[in-house]
């Protein structure tokens, strides 16, 4: 009983000390609150895969009603912003200079061939450097063209060019707005940064300033020190997390279809993993210089690229897919996207939370093993 009381007193002592330090040092608070706001705003508005007003060059070699009606279809589409050219060479040059992203080329015999029932191909040139954007652009062009063609066929009383139409139902995100899936993903990325950064420098700083040596000769146990350090930063990090979620819901209108408490539970789990990774970095590095360098390398880019936040994990080569399993953000991104857009889909949430829990145990053991109460 007495020993328990003593342990609680020591633990509370460390927690209190860390909290005081957090409150005194504006940089910790700014990591937890200013960074999410800044990043979420920047990304929430800055990151979008939805193209609109794509600059499109239209070359009409022989102006007539048919070519004008096709051009008009593009003009009315919200996706395009047409620029007109008289010769294909001019349009190609504009494409080279990146003034336009795609070209529609109606040759001088387009209308006559079409009306005569002869082959009347429409030339399309797309800048394929950004292949994803090129795919999207091509899809949009196809859509506009098909709509025009259906209309044209009806007017001409000819057969429908499309016996089978594509009837698409997109669940969870009917408008296919990329912000809906990017914002929850961003929350995961930002939390990775915050969690690891908050703690990456904490222990390294104590080593550098010599306070570690004084702590180590007190009766404080390793477990008490680790838990005592984690709790205040955990609370701080969760504050930042809630704040980001609030921004996502109210600022970016991302619907939260799942349970709020499940979201909190999953976030808590993830936050602990991120904090432990930071702690591990600072224990290994022992000085802020190396801790900072490691944090820069192992946190942001892997979370950005390997988490499935942007790039589909199923399409990666097998070996990379295996590697993504050690990126905790991977699990959190899956949980967040599901909880926000789909709802409480238990198999998805439980499997990913289970993985996070395993990581938690793994990193805690590693941190435990690496921190000893000795100077050697």
């Amino acid at each position, binding site marked *: 009983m007495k020993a328990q009381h003593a342990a609680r007193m020591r633990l509370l002592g460390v927690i209190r000390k860390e909290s005081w330090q957090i409150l005194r040092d504006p940089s910790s608070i700014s990591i937890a609150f200013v960074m999410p706001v*800044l990043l979420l705003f*920047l990304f929430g508005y800055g990151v979008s895969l939805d193209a609109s007003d794509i600059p499109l060059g239209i070359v009409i070699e022989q102006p007539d009603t048919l070519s004008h009606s096709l051009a008009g279809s593009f003009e009315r589409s919200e996706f395009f912003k047409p620029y007109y050219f008289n010769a294909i060479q001019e349009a190609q040059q504009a494409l080279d200079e990146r003034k336009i992203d795609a070209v529609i080329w109606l040759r001088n015999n387009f209308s006559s061939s079409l009306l005569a029932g002869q082959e009347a191909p429409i030339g399309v040139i797309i800048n394929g450097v950004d292949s994803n954007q090129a795919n999207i652009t091509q*899809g949009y062009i196809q859509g506009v063209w098909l709509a025009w063609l259906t209309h044209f066929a009806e007017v001409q009383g000819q057969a429908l060019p499309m016996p089978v139409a594509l009837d*698409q139902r997109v669940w969870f995100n009917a408008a296919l707005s990329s912000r809906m899936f990017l914002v929850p993903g961003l929350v995961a990325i930002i939390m990775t*940064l915050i969690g690891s950064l908050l703690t990456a420098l904490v222990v390294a700083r104590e080593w550098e300033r010599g306070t570690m040596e004084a702590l180590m000769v007190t009766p404080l146990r390793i477990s008490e020190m680790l838990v005592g350090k984690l709790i205040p930063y955990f609370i701080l990090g969760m504050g930042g997390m809630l704040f980001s979620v609030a921004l996502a819901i109210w600022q970016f209108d991302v619907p939260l279809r799942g349970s709020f408490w499940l979201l909190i539970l999953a976030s808590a789990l993830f936050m602990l993993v991120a904090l432990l990774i930071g702690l591990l970095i600072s224990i290994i590095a022992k000085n802020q210089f190396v801790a900072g360098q490691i944090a820069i390398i192992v946190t942001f880019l892997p979370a950005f690229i390997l988490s499935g936040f942007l790039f589909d994990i*199923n399409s990666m080569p097998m070996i990379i897919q295996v590697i993504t399993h050690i990126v905790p953000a991977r699990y959190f991104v899956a949980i967040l996207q599901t909880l926000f857009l789909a709802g409480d*889909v238990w198999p998805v949430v439980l499997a990913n939370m289970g993985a996070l829990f395993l990581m938690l145990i793994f990193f805690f053991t590693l941190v435990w093993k690496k921190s000893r109460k000795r100077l050697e």
Partner: protein
Amino acid sequence: MKFELIMALAIKEFLALLRDKRSRIVIIIPPIVQLLMFSFAATYDLNNIPVAVYNRDAGSLSHELISRLEGSPNFHIIKRIHHEAEIAPLIDNRAVLLVVNIDSHFSADMRRGQSTSMQVILDGRNSNTAMTAMNYLRTILLDFNRNWLEKQGQAGVKTVLDVRNWYNENLQSRWFIVPGIVCLLTLVVSLLVTSLSVAREREAGTFDQLLVTPIRPVEILIGKAIPGIVIGLLESTVIIIIMIMLFKIPLRGDIGALYLGIVLFLLSSTGVGLMISSIAVTQQQAILGAFLFMVPAVILSGFSTPIANMPEVVQWLTYLDPLRYFLIIVRGVFLEGDSYGLLFNQYWPMLLISIVSLAFSGWLFRHRMY
């Protein structure tokens, strides 16, 4: 300006960076590993999309359509289902990305010359994946339709879209992403080398020792910038060689134009790194500063999402991001075969950023003392 002084400083900076084993490893190994890992990982192309098929039609036409789906490398049919109730769990649990749902009178309708449809239910949690998958489907369907019309001998309207993709003929997203990763890693390396260099010396007290020598701030500045630029140049060269040899990205433009871009970019990122480092009082602040620059710089550069899709205000912000220009140069030279003339508008903003940030950090050396 004395050349010998600058050299002495640069040599010292190299030694300080590379003598420590941990920091040597941190600077050299991760960029190469990350290039390989990320380049394989980062792709928008989808293959083996898991698909479930719910086919209620007994006719041959629906089978033909489904076998076209099966034949495509993009799709992988993992399940054929027999009840409508099976659809929701498959999509909810992310077992499949999409379910193809064909009506019982699909073949009959087609043979009667009536128009019919193929219903697709997609998981929209990742809207980009969903849209890409839909484009693949649409192309398959278009082919199927044309084929059917020709077999029926219906003339129809004889117009097709004859699509050509310039610069990246097969629309491989790797061609787009890998040059981007090169830019990212170059940024990370130059920030790693420079962003802590002044803050670290301030904390250790060696910066004072440096300031009482006859070395001028300009010389300190150049001496401190050289390692970032040299290491950045070497690493980007290695990365570019890997990119050409391993990922077979075509180098179509002028290599000189590429290196001019690299040098200018390194100058500007080194300038920003040194600026962060001289504003910071402690290393902790310098690390924070590096993050606060790096993360938005990557997001706003157009690396993963087009700048044109951003709101106008954010687009204005991207003009401050040196990575933006560098990305255009690298992609331009590699894929589009650009040369100096076309890239002029990318060169000068980076030069401007370098000059401003370097001048400001040089000024801070002497005017930020405590």
